[in-house]
């Protein structure tokens, strides 16, 4: 594997750094030899370029007035990429403080969302955060740790969701005493690990947006490397969420609660191997929060993300390392799907639905039986009906249809009929930002 690692380390070499031509190089990447400082500057340069906008600079006078104080939210998982991004951004703030007499172009807020499988981590994020932030004094960095449980704001939104054979979904409100679910409980009801993984992304995304809203952050930044973005593109495609690729991986803006947020991936041009090299060089790696769970060698026990991750590392090892960059470039060229109508938004994950997934699936997954031909066969049908009526059937009263996207249908399929699946459903037609307006301004709703 090391032989094909895109980054080659040089131990006691006489190779000179090709950038400064002053000191020996420590590594070779992209066919160029770098010394420690030049490599660090090279990686930082990627971020500087991505956040070159006026709003991230130190502003004075009229410009400052017009743009206002900016706040940037950094999604910090504790993994090596997010640590490197923190370092790169904090170093920018340090430079600004030095050259602008203590002024910064923006405030930085680190947000960590408590992992679901907390016990599996090698250290607590709370331990590393103070150490991390301390490194960049006098830059003042705020941090927040949020429990995944805060995803639930309104217990009344939780409903039991069932997928029918014809791919329609129905939901049923829960009585107060039934409704004892925590977010962890809901995740445990997922039919399989890949489904859980899928819904965890939904939770993270929403929590990050909400925090940005509450903290008044105009920008959200992620530490995704090029390799990670490529992986994301592939995983979304595999999960039937191809329509989201164009948004999910590009630097873009989103509307949330009537506000616009800029989402950036400042390390999108950096290979994962380069991120690791950076962390090694400045000894950030000792702060890394890792899962101690050893990934299974058996495919059956892996998730879709595990498989796509393995795929890319396998390509790196077999000399197809450029594939990640190809995939990212391809993903960046994608746009919004073109379909005549929209089928509204998914009530589980919130994406826009372009092509009716129920209809699509029904045509290619037929559920009609071949005709019954003999008396014996008819007897079996009767037997079956008897058995069915004696066993408890799900009460279908008080159910109502739910609009769900293809990706969520896939995620839900296989959920058991009896335990079902529960989730805080969004409204069908109105976006939640609209809902907020309704909640705030309408006093009574007689139509209900």
């Amino acid at each position, binding site marked *: 594997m090391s032989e094909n690692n895109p980054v080659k380390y040089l131990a006691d070499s006489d190779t000179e750094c090709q950038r400064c031509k002053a000191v020996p190089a420590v590594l070779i990447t992209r066919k160029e030899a770098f010394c420690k400082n030049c490599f660090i500057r090279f990686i930082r340069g990627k971020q500087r370029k991505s956040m070159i906008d006026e709003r991230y600079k130190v502003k004075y006078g009229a410009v400052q007035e017009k743009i206002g104080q900016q706040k940037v939210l950094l999604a910090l998982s504790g993994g090596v990429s997010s640590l490197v991004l923190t370092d790169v951004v904090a170093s920018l703030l340090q430079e600004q403080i030095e050259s602008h007499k203590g002024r910064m172009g923006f405030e930085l807020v680190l947000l960590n969302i408590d992992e679901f499988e907390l016990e599996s981590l090698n250290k607590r994020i709370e331990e590393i955060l103070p150490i991390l932030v301390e490194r960049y004094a006098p830059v003042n960095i705020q941090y927040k740790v949020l429990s995944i449980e805060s995803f639930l704001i309104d217990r009344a939104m939780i409903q039991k969701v069932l997928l029918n054979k014809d791919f329609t979904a129905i939901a049923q409100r829960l009585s107060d005493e039934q409704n004892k679910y925590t977010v962890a409980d809901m995740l445990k009801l997922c039919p*399989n690990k*890949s489904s859980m993984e899928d819904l965890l992304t939904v939770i993270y995304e929403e929590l990050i947006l909400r925090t940005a809203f509450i903290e008044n952050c105009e920008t959200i930044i992620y530490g995704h490397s090029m390799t990670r973005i490529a992986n994301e*593109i*592939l995983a*979304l*495609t*595999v*999960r*039937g*969420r*191809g*329509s989201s*690729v*164009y948004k999910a991986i590009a630097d873009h803006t989103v509307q949330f609660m009537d506000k616009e947020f800029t989402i950036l991936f400042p390390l999108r041009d950096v290979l994962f191997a380069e991120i690791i090299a950076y962390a090694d060089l400045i000894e950030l790696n000792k702060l890394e929060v890792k899962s101690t769970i050893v990934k299974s060698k058996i*495919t*059956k026990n*892996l*998730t*879709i993300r595990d*498989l*796509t991750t393995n*795929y890319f590392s396998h*390509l790196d090892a*077999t000399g*197809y390392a450029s594939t990640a960059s*190809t*995939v990212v*470039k*391809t*993903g960046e*060229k*994608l*746009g*919004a*799907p073109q379909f005549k109508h929209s089928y509204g938004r998914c009530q589980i994950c919130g994406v826009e639905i*372009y*092509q009716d*997934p129920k209809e699509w*699936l029904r*045509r*290619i*997954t*037929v*559920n*009609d*039986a*071949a005709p*019954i031909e003999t008396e*014996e*066969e*008819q007897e*079996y*049908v009767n*037997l*079956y009906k008897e*058995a069915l009526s004696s066993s408890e059937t799900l009460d279908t009263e008080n159910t109502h249809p739910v609009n769900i996207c*293809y*990706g969520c249908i*896939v995620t839900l*399929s296989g959920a058991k009929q009896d335990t079902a699946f529960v989730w805080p459903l969004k409204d069908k037609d109105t976006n939640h930002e609209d809902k907020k307006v309704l909640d705030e301004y309408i006093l009574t709703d007689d139509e209900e």
Partner: protein
Amino acid sequence: MTEISAKKVKVSALCELCHARKAVMKRPKNLQKLCKDCFYKVFETEIHNTIVDAKLFSPGDKVAIGASGGKDSTVLASVLKTLNERYDYGLILVLLSIDEGIKGYRDDSLATVKRNQVQYEMPLEIISYRDLYNWTMDEIVSCAGIRSSCTYCGVLRRQALDRGAAKLGINHVVTGHNADDMAETVLMNLLRGDTARLEKSCAIITQSAGSPIKRSKPFKYTYQKEIVLYAHYKKLDYFSTECTYAPEAFRGTARELLKSLESIRPSCIMDIIYSGEHLVLAPKKKKITTSYKTNKKKTHTENEVNADGSVSLGRKKQFEDGNRCEKCGYLSSNRICKACMLLAGLEMNRAKVSIDNNTAVDGAAVLTRTLEQLSF
């Protein structure tokens, strides 16, 4: 009556659709436990739905089935015959086979197609590379190397099928490409960054520029594993040896990935196709360069060079032009068609080989050079 003793099928062992017969198989697409009859029913109905939704055929159409003797095309011939009769499509079906000239593979599989001709009572036309191009694949591989075999073969087959169809007075060829192939293509186009093909990777009907012949894939949503099961239960006569010239290594990695994915989530083949139907290129951003903003008239329109080295002219223009290859007279958007271009490269090579008897010619390099000539 033997049924009496066979009775006592447990209710839980009954087919999940009819509840009348014993389930004998797990359906690969969704792991539903089904009896044989219900499997046939859903398998055939789904293909029928695909055909109807895409309006593939009209009554009276003469359609050529690209038949290789392999399981996909054998099942396609069988199912199309069944559906044509059941739903009165009113089609005239013909088998069209290509003989690439691959010893130990194509000669045996063609024998299968000849038996199919009798079994399905369909006329059969065989077009050989040797007759058409004066080259067999075996000769091409020995001259150009094994690595690029499928590239040559693909270009030549495309034209051979077109010519075969034209000879039969047919303008529609159906092929046995299945859902697994579609999903693999979506992944490959993403992984190779083939944006020119990405949008079309899930198209059920394709027509190459300038060609009067359309191709379609009635098995677009049909799982490979189900095709195998159908052939097995229906005891269809097919040939299961793979071509001696294995597919290229990189495609192999995508195929492996797809297999592992399918093992943890059987629906993933459909899921990838659904995704693929939503992958579209964003409208090209026009870069406004302030210094040239005024009065810069378009003096020349740039032609985009595709990943395969060809050049896309405006699509409509190609059709209007109806250009023909200067060498072979075949419809082509370039002066010389792709097949002739490849063959010219081979001829040069063959001459060289016979002169200095150098067998270690780098075929891939020749191919790249040849394809480069296609771009202007």
